[in-house]
């Protein structure tokens, strides 16, 4: 932990005077002096640097020492205090870092907006609820996240989608013409829907019996309309055929249709009709037939024939409401705000500035205006013509990429990013979207980078509803919750898993994290909390009885075995197999995502667990796994993963509580970690994890910093991570303190250029960065 070259020298001296003699005595007989039993050579290390270059071997050394695997029983054993001495030195050596110099902020590769960022940016830029990126190809991921600049590539397929998305966005955002302009729409009799009758000729309809002929019509707004019907009757008896005009089943007006076939007449109604979809019906109500009258002259058949119906309107309509998107984009109206050219320039400048997330340059606006003039000269209406440059903005690299530039002189020396670049880093980190007006204003004033201003903005942004994106995108990927969307547990073993349960699981995690963010709670609540959110479906799944209905309620977890993210059904499900739990998978998940100490991947050609019914019945999963672990190659890592996973075995593969496993064996949740710590059951596991909050904090910090910067962690980031952790500890682990410390770090506030991809040199199969 000590800093500076003196501390480094001290570490190396301790190795020479204390550690090396011990190792010579107990280890080098087999793993040194030219011997390398089990392919392990231990006498090639002399300094902390050597140890850091081979952390994997040294982690194993610490593990086998503490577990008593090495030295083997028949060999001389070091005293407990000597073992501890070696372990303590190794831990310090691995952890040692000199943080006395300036920080290297690293290079963030030109970052293309990913699908979420694109959708959100379009939403905020144009105020439309439209997600064109859902149709884009999936973004590739790196370091566990889909916002890594290096991995987000461009392709012709994507370019094609961008072009067409730009057209669709403008189509939806801008209102063309007046939707309330008066129109006439005519429907011939046969174009309407009848309840009775038959065609009278090629286009008219004969209502030969009591019944209706109707049409559903969308009245654009509440206003006066005129409805005209051309009709005639086949007359019979005293009365003329009656034609009742009905609106949504209500009689409006009744016409006596006295006209005859050779001279159809037009019947009119004019009146106020509310906006929206209405059923306009013409009802025939007084049918009369007499075919059997002895007086042949009194025989006959009365019918109503509808030739067509016209709807005209609206008359005297109010001015149409301008959609928010239209106002957001077309910020000037010719005539009112200046000439067409002036207004177009204003619209283009405003849109490009917001889309590029920094002021559009004079040249950029001039170039875009040429597109406008071309379209206008091509006789496009003003709104249509102005769409063309706006579409170009949406395909411009300045919109599609988060551009950060370096000064032309010495670009590779770390330098602060501009306040506009900072605004984008902030907004895409916390909101997965473009900066809002307030951030842009602070950037324009060049005050955004001031630490107090930044802190205030972080607090404000976290309490904004858009911060839910941090849950969806950061937490969703960190805890692999996104995998729940496509998850299909074996329906024969878990018949009660359905869409509702899946959604409830997801919602629980989302609400829990949103609470931690909104109420600025301690991130240690992720490891252990006394509350969560459930609705009736999830409560039932958890064995709780007092929550009813679809809505989620915050409930106490006292007495439920649950608490923290690891006992959420969502996490328990995605860390299981579809048909069974996997203590290994869950253990690995905790090591990787919670403690940040991933085990190395398994050696090739490892036989997996037998899973036949006979095997399941013959031995418990634990017994089967223990058999598997008897192979020393597997043992080293499995002794780290399995005890953690076993402690969670009371939760089945969809996160419900159980006392027996699928084979009917009582569940044994006890185990021992390599450091000798005992774990037993979920409550105890929580305590163990909280006792390792340092590892957890470092893990969260590394993951969130990766996500915030959109690049992988490098060796030089270790000091930054350490400093962030210190600051969070000082602030009682409050969520905002993690975000704040990240945002205030040099890695976030500065950047440096990179002129060449890191040269890679292969040396005997291992890669060395130069």
């Amino acid at each position, binding site marked *: 932990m000590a800093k500076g070259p003196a501390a480094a020298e001290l570490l190396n001296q301790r190795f020479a005077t204390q550690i090396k003699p011990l190792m010579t005595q107990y280890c080098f007989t087999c793993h040194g002096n030219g011997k390398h039993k089990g392919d392990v050579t231990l006498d090639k290390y002399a300094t902390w640097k050597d140890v850091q270059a081979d952390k994997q071997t040294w982690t194993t050394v610490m593990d086998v020492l503490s577990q008593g695997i090495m030295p083997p029983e028949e060999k001389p054993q070091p005293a407990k205090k000597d073992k501890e001495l070696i372990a303590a030195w190794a831990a310090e050596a691995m952890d040692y870092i000199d943080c006395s110099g300036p920080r290297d902020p690293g290079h963030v*590769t*030109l970052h293309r907006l990913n699908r979420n960022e694109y959708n959100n940016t379009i939403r905020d830029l144009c105020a439309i609820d439209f997600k064109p990126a859902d149709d884009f*190809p*999936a*973004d*590739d*991921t*790196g*370091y*566990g996240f889909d916002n*890594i*600049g*290096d991995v987000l*590539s*461009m*392709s*012709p*397929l994507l*370019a094609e989608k961008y*072009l067409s998305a730009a*057209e669709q966005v403008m189509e939806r955002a801008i209102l063309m013409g007046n939707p309330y302009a008066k129109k006439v729409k005519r429907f011939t009799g046969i174009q309407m829907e009848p309840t009775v009758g038959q065609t009278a000729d090629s286009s008219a309809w004969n209502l030969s019996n009591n019944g209706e002929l109707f049409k559903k019509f969308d009245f654009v707004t509440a206003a006066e309309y005129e409805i005209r019907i051309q009709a005639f009757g086949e007359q019979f008896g005293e009365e003329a055929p009656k034609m009742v005009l009905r609106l949504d089943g209500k009689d409006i007006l009744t016409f006596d249709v006295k006209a005859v076939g050779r001279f159809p007449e037009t019947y009119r109604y004019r009146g106020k009709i509310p906006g929206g979809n209405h059923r306009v019906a013409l009802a025939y109500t007084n049918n009369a037939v007499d075919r059997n009258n002895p007086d042949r002259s009194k025989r006959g058949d009365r019918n109503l024939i509808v030739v067509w119906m016209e709807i005209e309107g609206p008359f005297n309509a109010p001015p149409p409401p301008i959609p928010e998107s239209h106002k957001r984009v077309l910020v000037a109206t010719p005539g009112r705000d200046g000439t067409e050219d002036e207004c177009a320039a204003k619209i283009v400048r405003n849109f490009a500035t917001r889309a590029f997330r920094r002021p559009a340059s004079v040249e950029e606006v001039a*170039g875009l205006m*040429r*597109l406008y*003039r*071309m*379209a206008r*000269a091509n006789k496009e209406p003003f709104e249509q013509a102005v769409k*063309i440059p706006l*579409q*170009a903005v949406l*395909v*411009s*690299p300045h919109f599609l*990429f988060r551009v950060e530039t370096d000064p032309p002189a010495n670009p590779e020396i770390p330098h602060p990013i501009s306040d506009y670049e900072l605004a984008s880093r902030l907004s895409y980190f916390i909101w997965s979207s473009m900066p809002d007006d307030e951030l842009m204003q602070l950037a324009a004033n060049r005050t955004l980078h001031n630490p107090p201003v930044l802190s205030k903005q972080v607090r404000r942004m976290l309490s904004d509803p858009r911060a839910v994106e941090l849950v969806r995108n950061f937490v*969703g990927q960190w805890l*692999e*919750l*996104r995998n729940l*969307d*496509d998850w*299909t547990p*074996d329906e024969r073993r878990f018949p009660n898993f359905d869409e509702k349960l899946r959604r409830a699981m997801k919602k629980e995690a989302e609400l829990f994290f949103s609470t931690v963010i909104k109420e600025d709670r301690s991130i240690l609540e992720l490891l252990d909390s006394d509350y969560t959110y459930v609705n009736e479906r999830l409560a039932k799944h958890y064995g709780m009885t007092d929550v009813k209905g679809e809505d989620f309620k915050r409930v106490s977890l006292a007495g439920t075995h649950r608490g923290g993210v690891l006992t959420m059904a969502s996490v328990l499900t995605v860390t299981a*197999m*579809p048909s069974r739990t996997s203590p290994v998978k869950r253990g690995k998940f905790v090591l990787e995502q919670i403690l940040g100490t991933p085990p190395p*991947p*398994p050696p*090739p*050609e490892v036989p*997996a667990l037998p*899973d*036949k019914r006979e095997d399941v019945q013959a031995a418990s999963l634990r017994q089967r796994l223990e058999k598997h672990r008897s192979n020393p190659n597997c043992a080293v890592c499995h002794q780290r993963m399995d005890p953690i996973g076993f402690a969670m075995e009371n939760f089945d593969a969809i996160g419900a509580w159980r006392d027996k496993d699928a084979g009917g064996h009582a569940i044994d949740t006890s185990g021992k970690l390599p450091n000798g710590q005992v774990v037993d059951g979920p409550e105890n596991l929580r305590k163990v994890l909280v006792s390792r909050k340092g590892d957890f904090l470092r893990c969260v910090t590394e993951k969130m910093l990766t996500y915030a910067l959109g690049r992988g962690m490098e060796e030089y980031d270790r000091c930054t991570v350490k400093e962030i952790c210190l600051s969070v500890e000082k602030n009682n682990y409050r969520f905002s303190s993690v975000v704040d410390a990240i945002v205030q770090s040099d890695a976030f506030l500065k950047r440096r250029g*990179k*002129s*060449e*991809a890191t040269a*890679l040199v292969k040396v005997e*199969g*291992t*890669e060395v960065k130069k």
Partner: protein
Amino acid sequence: MSRITRRTMLRGLGVAMGLPFLDSMVPGTVLNAAQAAGTTAGGAAAVAPTRMAYFFIPNGVNIPYWTPNKEGFDFDLTPTLEPLKAVQKDVMVLSGLTLDNARAKGDGPGDHARSAAAFLTGAHPYKTSGANIKLGVSVDQIAANMIGSQTRLPSLELGLDKGQTAGNCDSGYSCAYVSNISWRSETTPMPKEVDPGSLFDRLFGAGNDKAAAESRAKRYMYRKSILDFVAEDAKRLDRQLGKVDQQKMDEFTTSIREIEKRIVMMQKQEAEQKKPDMARPEGIPGDMTEHMKLMCDLLVLAFQMDITRVSTVMVARDGSDRHYRWLNITEGHHTLSHHGGNAAKIESIRKIDRYHMEQFAYFLQKMKSIKEGSGTLLDHSMIMLGSGISDGDRHNHDELPIVLAGKGGGFIKPGRHIRFPRNTPLCNLYLSMLENMGVKQDRFGDSNGRLSTLML
């Protein structure tokens, strides 16, 4: 109207009038391909172009159920290959091919990432979770680069995996390696189209567009102008960037140019664009069989209508743990592939392998049902299916399961099982296939020759 405006407009109009070079180009190159294939030059004008497609299946197969015992013409159809019965005379089973660069070579675990990455590139991926991704250009893209300008879409990348997964992809490899088999450059993968509806729009947009021809022409013109502007924009930006970022801008500019070319093609083909005999599919079917069928139907149409001649189909990303529940299989594909000799798991793997083969057989039969010139569409194609891993339990990359279908316009003599000497590079096959597409290369990936026995 300013001077520049007029010029931009004229450029747009010039495009609308069609470019003469396209007319002369198409038959010429087809002829070359035909000559390379050794067909008689007599009916050159009627010679159909050669198409090429690669189907990728993840996680290897169960080799004992796959490999025929007999070699040569009367090879036996094993349980997994049995669905190919109706097209047995059109397929060739190739045994003994190897993907050496999918091997670890000191990089440790990550066989699934390496197998997908090396499958069509023959290259060894640089191990990284994100920074400095580096692989090689895939065989389909080499073909697309050479002959792609003759069709509206130089190539078509298809897949069935809907989204990405959260979490790590494979042992320290970026998901880019796991989820893509087609690579345009050493650093840039070609993403896949997975939605049949979107694919339909891309293929038939012009022919199916209800807008009047006049408004379409206008839209093309504006699109061209927008792309011109954007290309200029990118060029200016490029000058402000460092090398690494310039690489990203280069990806962008190349893509933009590609789209410009497509618009030119669209306009040119406007008149001759026929409507497909198929309704636009809506969304991605939840059912894999239906999804695969739609993608196959659309690919057949794309080949038949000569919208593209090169394609890749990724049935699933490597390491996919997809659940084949409709086959009554309860565990995921990848989980099962590590069967450790367990008979029940092997049986499930066999079912999955056979299922994949049934889907492939559907595609081949459809290709065969379409008459083209004196033969069928399949006769004028080379359709390969395979995996970058041989046995999913062992993760070995020799003895790969590879099937090649079609006659490649007469270049291939199918209906056989050929066994190649151990460790024959799979890339030798690619080199031969490229040659038949009219693309002469001395080497591809780790190739050390051509597969002369394909022709007999």
